[in-house]
């Protein structure tokens, strides 16, 4: 073994990266390893870097083992499983000095693999599987499980945990379970016999994952829709949001079908395009059902016209934008926060929309529920801006929990009896001074009927081209937006709040920022941190901006969209804000944040930041 220097012991703190070919079934082996570490009580996070492709292109999976429970991408690779000959060259380069690389040694090692500051481990996976399994496809699949077995030996994962996971997964397919267990054993035994097990990169049992789950944001958001009582979902398939509707449909088939009659308490509509998907949501919501659509940036572009109608005609709707890299088709399988402005001002004319910013799958669940309550309370579109990193990667979050006392806030909906009490029902009158009018549902009574339209309308909903009547309605919409600022989820503050410099950010930047704050504090930079969770910004955001001399705005797009939104929608002077931007399509890392904050503040900044 040509290790040049002894690697430092990296107990419960290292990164494994799997370089695979997509479509070869590697995902189940990689998930198996991650879950086994999780079940050892050691916090993990998994990041999938996959191509927009079905089969044959390079794909990577990264598992960060972090005893401290850091959620961000690690930013370094300690152990590379180089299973894709096409990407050997770059995979070798990526291993941190002192790190390890494992490859399939059935065939002679490529010269490309030469590197003297890492340890290269060979295991004849193809040979082992060809000798032990039949069938081409089976051999390919078992190769993955076989390396999972070897990995278990290398990083010292309790084999019993791995076995239990396999047995659970194939509980209904005992033949498959047997084959998988055999492959695990093959890899494990080979590694124990021929490789230096365990490596300094080791998993040691802890008790830090109890009460937690590994779940992706799209699944959690789908559960939010289920528990919020959504009955109509409409969508057009688009990466990275498709799995949200797949999950919703799956949950509905489990929980919303009458076992006696087979009758279903839901409708999922696969639309012909995003224009129709949002139209269906508007139609269903107009009719009093909780309805939603999951999509991504290109879908939002197409939905703009209907979003304006829903805003002006005041129809609730819930839209999940699982953001991916733009512009245009962009990089569909990479992550960004690039639709903030698109969603905030979607559609022509004067429009402004309510946005929610979940930071992890846990918040995808709670904010999905909040989105339906807000949409119906405010009678307006509500966007939940997740992203590919949150939506499609497995995160460790506290178990999702539910309060059975919850009842949906259906907002101001009048019954036939209530309408009967009125002299006349007027759809767009502000009776309560909060800018929110009362609505009725189709089918209520003739007296409750009104006309919903995107054309100019007066307080009764009747067509108008009268300037005063038009302005009366749109001015009330402004008041309603001010009400929204008091109802959206409050921002989260870290730190005492009175330091001179603050970080302001949102969504999936949270993990890397919180991790970086620790490192920054060690280096003498003490900063406050405010994570916004909703738009329009409320009083807390204004106060944070007013109370800090300098605010570093961290976000994942090129054009500083959050900073733009802050300058447009708050009283903050532009010169106070400094942007830290990350937009290469990969999730943000703590290292990037630390370096950028240090660069922004400099040595003087450290003193200033530490002054209070």
């Amino acid at each position: 073994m040509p290790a040049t220097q002894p690697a430092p012991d990296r107990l419960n703190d290292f990164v494994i990266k799997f370089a695979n070919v997509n479509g070869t079934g590697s995902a189940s082996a990689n998930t198996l390893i991650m879950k086994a570490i999780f079940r050892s009580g050691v916090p993990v996070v998994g990041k999938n870097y996959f191509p927009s492709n079905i089969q044959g292109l390079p794909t990577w999976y990264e598992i960060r083992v972090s005893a401290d429970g850091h959620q961000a991408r690690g930013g370094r690779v300690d152990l590379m499983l180089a299973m894709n000959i096409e990407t050997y060259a770059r995979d070798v380069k990526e291993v941190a000095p002192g790190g390890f690389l494992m490859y399939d040694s059935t065939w002679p090692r490529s010269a490309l693999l030469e590197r003297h500051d890492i340890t290269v481990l060979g295991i004849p996976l193809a040979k082992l599987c060809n000798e032990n399994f039949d069938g081409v496809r089976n051999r390919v699949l078992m190769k993955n499980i076989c390396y999972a077995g070897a990995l278990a030996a290398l990083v010292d994962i309790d084999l019993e945990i791995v076995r239990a996971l396999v047995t659970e997964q194939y509980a209904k397919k005992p033949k498959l379970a047997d084959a998988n267990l055999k492959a695990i054993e093959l890899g494990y035994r080979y590694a124990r016999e021929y490789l230096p097990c365990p490596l300094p990169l080791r998993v040691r049992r802890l008790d830090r994952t109890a009460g937690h789950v590994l779940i992706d944001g799209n699944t959690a958001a789908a559960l939010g829709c289920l528990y919020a009582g959504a009955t109509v979902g409409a969508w057009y398939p688009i990466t990275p949001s498709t799995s949200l509707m797949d999950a919703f449909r799956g949950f509905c088939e489990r929980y919303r079908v009458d076992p006696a009659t087979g009758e279903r308490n839901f409708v999922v509509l696969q639309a012909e395009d995003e224009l129709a998907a949002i139209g269906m949501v508007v139609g269903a919501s107009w009719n009093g059902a909780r309805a939603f659509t999951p999509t991504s940036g290109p879908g939002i572009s197409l939905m703009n016209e209907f979003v304006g109608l829903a805003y002006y005609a005041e129809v609730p709707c819930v839209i999940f934008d699982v953001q991916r890299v733009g512009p245009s088709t962009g990089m569909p399988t990479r992550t960004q926060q690039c639709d903030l402005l698109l969603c905030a001002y979607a559609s022509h004319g004067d429009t402004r929309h309510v946005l929610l910013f979940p930071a992890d799958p846990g918040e995808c669940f709670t904010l999905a529920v909040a989105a339906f309550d807000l949409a119906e309370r405010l009678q307006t579109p509500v966007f939940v801006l997740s992203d590919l990193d949150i939506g499609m990667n497995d995160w460790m979050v506290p178990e999702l929990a539910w309060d059975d006392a919850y009842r949906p806030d259906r907002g101001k909906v009048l019954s036939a009896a209530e309408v009967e009490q009125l002299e006349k029902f007027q759809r767009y009158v502000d009776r309560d001074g909060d800018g929110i009018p009362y609505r009725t549902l189709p089918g209520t009574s003739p007296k409750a009927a009104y006309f919903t339209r995107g054309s100019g309308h007066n307080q009764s909903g009747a067509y108008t081209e009268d300037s005063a009547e038009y302005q009366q309605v749109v001015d009330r919409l402004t008041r309603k937006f001010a009400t929204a600022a008091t109802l959206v989820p409050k921002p989260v503050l870290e730190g005492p709040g009175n330091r001179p410099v603050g970080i302001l950010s949102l969504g999936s930047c949270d993990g890397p920022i919180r991790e970086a704050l620790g490192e920054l504090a060690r280096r003498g930079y003490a900063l406050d941190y405010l994570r916004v969770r909703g738009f329009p910004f409320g009083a807390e955001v204004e106060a944070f901006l007013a109370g800090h001399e300098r605010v570093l705005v961290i976000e994942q797009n090129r054009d500083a969209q959050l900073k733009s939104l802050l300058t447009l929608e708050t009283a903050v002077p532009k010169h106070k804000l400094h942007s830290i931007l990350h937009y290469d399509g990969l999730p943000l890392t703590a290292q990037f944040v630390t370096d950028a904050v240090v660069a922004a503040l400099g040595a003087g900044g450290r003193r200033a930041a530490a002054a209070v």
Partner: protein
Amino acid sequence: MTSIVKPRIAHPALPKNELGLTRRQYEGAMSTLCAGCGHDSVTAAIVEACWGLSLRPEQLAKLSGIGCSSKTTAYFVSGAHGFNAVHGRMPSIATGANAANRELCYVGVSGDGDSLSIGLGQLAHAIRRNVNMLYVIENNGVYGLTKGQFSASADVGTKSKRGEANTQPPVDPVLLALTLGATFVARSFSGDKRQLVPLLQAGMRHQGFALIDVLSPCVTFNDHEGSTKSYAFTREHYHAAVEADFIARAREIAVDYAEGESTVVTMHDGSRVRLRKLDPGYDPSDRVAAYDYIERKFADGEYVTGLIHVADGSASELHAANRTTATPLNRVPYERLSPGAAALGKLMARYR
């Protein structure tokens, strides 16, 4: 201009339907369309159809897109909720609304521009999904509000008001609907209330997507010599293949026809449509033959009207295909929608 309020004075002797309502109670706001517009006749036919069906006004949901035709949903049944959607996108609103509440009677009114150009995709997919609704196209071959451009239904050779001839072949909504497997396809003429009213009633009672293409001349931009969608041209080239009478559930068939002349189709709710075939040998249940018949007649310079094709659409209707619960989804109590805290706790095991 604001909407015009219609005086509501009802003569005590006006006839009443089973609900005790007069026709006046099925009217809407005053029309702002041009005097003589075919669409106003269609509006009157819809009023008559709803009154005749004794439909509770609030049981109707009126949907439309954008254009002259789409304005008309404001002109009938003011006691029903209406939705004037965006241009060409009414079918998706109707689909979502119907998904949320399967009990209401959905009537969409659209035009040839709204349905066959900007909205062709949504129309096609609403037909494919077999959304339970009546979809009326008020077809005049021309864009009115933007002052006389050809629409996608303009025939080859038809002349615009300025004298230019259309060269592109038309989209025929009836042929389109037949191609896509619609189970209720009809064509009529705004000037023929006797034919149109029973078709509207049958379409409203049909379980599934019912399309009626109504030739509805534009008096301002497309009623001149050389137009194939003028009143005069339509009257001259109008060929009724099948006449339909609608018979409400409780009523007896009043007049007997000689055997072989008429067929009775029973609708899903028990009401019936009696079809009288004016062309012996024409079979409205045969979709392929219907398609062929329309094409041949068109080659002879005739527009086939009447109930062109009808079949049982109940099995493939959106909710039937989905096996949706009978209770409208917007009324299913929340308690039946939430799996509860215990179920979530159990589910969490999957993610450990």
